[in-house]
């Protein structure tokens, strides 16, 4: 089972993720050039890049500065979400052995704390959805499902690292959760991990090029 989930299934998951995202990007660009021509009449890379950049750094935008607590939580959540799986020692060893690629890793202890931090951030995000009326009103079951898909690999990973319950079973569940997330990204709202750059670039150019209005 372990051989299967780290072998063929991993190939399938990464394949669907990469091909899915590529198809998504291409279809967005094609659709835009067909139906949103107006966007390209006044395109400005400078304004686009600045908008993207300012929204990628913490407190880089006015919107973020006006909601500091939420911004910190969002950043912790997203940074951990990306960094932990990519720089986790165990993952690195696995990729090295299977695919011959390797890079810098976190120490196991820091990865452990970052995972805790991510779970704490996720709890805040969930509580927000329940407690704040303006967030509750737009929250659907789908939003919780997405959070679950995104956080499940971390919870199970944490359990696996600490070898709680039956280690091997937990580990396999962990790998499956990770693969479910990879597969889900191109088909769900999680695709914002790539589409964010498109929509941000659009608004940056849209508001900036013609009007000089900053979108950050």
């Amino acid at each position, binding site marked *: 089972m372990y051989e299967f989930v780290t072998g063929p299934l991993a190939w399938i998951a990464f394949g669907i993720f990469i091909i899915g995202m590529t198809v998504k990007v291409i279809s*967005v*660009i094609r*659709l*835009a050039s*067909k*139906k*949103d021509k107006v*966007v390209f009449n006044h395109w400005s890379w400078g304004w686009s890049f600045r*908008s993207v950049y300012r*929204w990628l750094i913490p407190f880089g935008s*006015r*919107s973020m500065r*006006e*909601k500091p607590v*939420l911004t910190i939580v*969002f950043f912790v959540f997203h940074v951990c979400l990306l960094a932990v799986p990519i720089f986790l020692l165990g993952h690195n060893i696995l990729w090295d052995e299977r695919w011959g690629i390797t890079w810098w890793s976190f120490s196991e202890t820091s990865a452990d704390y970052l995972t805790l931090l991510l779970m704490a951030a996720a709890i805040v995000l969930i509580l*927000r959805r329940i407690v*704040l*009326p*303006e*967030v*509750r*009103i*737009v*929250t*659907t079951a789908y*939003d919780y499902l997405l959070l679950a898909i995104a956080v499940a690999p971390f919870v199970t990973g944490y359990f696996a690292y600490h070898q709680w319950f039956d280690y091997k079973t937990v580990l396999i569940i962990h790998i499956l959760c990770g693969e479910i997330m990879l597969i889900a990204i191109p088909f769900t*709202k999680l*695709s*914002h991990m790539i*589409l*964010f750059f*498109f*929509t*941000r670039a*659009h*608004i*940056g150019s*849209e*508001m900036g090029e013609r009007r000089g*209005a*900053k*979108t*950050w």
Partner: protein
Amino acid sequence: MPEPAIDTDFIRERLAFFKGARFKTWLDICAHCGYCADSCFFYTAHDKDPKYMPAYKIMQTLGKLYKKNGNVTREELKGIADIAYGDCTACRRCSLYCPFGIEPALMIAAVRGMCCSQGLAPPALMEAAKNHLEFGNQMAITTEDMVETCVWMEEENEEEMPGMKIPVDKEGCDTLYVLNAREVKYYPQDIAEAAMIFHAAGENWTFPSMGWDMTNLGMFAGHAKIMAHAAKLCYDAAERLGVKRIFTSE
């Protein structure tokens, strides 16, 4: 009188039309994070009543239309129109606050278009917009009345500023001046003030007898035909009089 049924085929067609890369992506990725809430003055003015937060208004209008694929009852569309016209002024402030840079204003405009096509635009707005077609301005002012107002304003301010003219339809000027029809109807002094400033600055300008209303209520109502017509009137005037640029009063 029974109200006509909603032309769902038409709505569906519009929905398909709007589903370009932008609308599709925006609706696909809105994470319902709530960053937009405080940016909206409707929301803050109503003591943070969540039903005024931008993302919710979009979910209740365009989101609902897409979800039902246009199959809405007149009652439902009325509710949608009520939000699209009455709970949003399309000021675009929320776009600056959205992490994804989603533009609810454009989506509201699309919804208004669909509501308008089913006769659900606010009657007063629609009536004013239709004036564009008949009179070339939103206030139903005839060309004669307008020219008269200009002459009257010239005379009125003769003493204040001797030699000041409001040149109507003068060809070969540098500048075409267009304004908001409210000025002619309610604040005629505004024309005179502009004329005085142009005069003082030595501007070579003219005022068109047709196509002088630069407001575009067709756009606000969501009526594409009126929208295009109103804009065309201004550009026609500019071409007819051969001006180099257009100044608007706002």
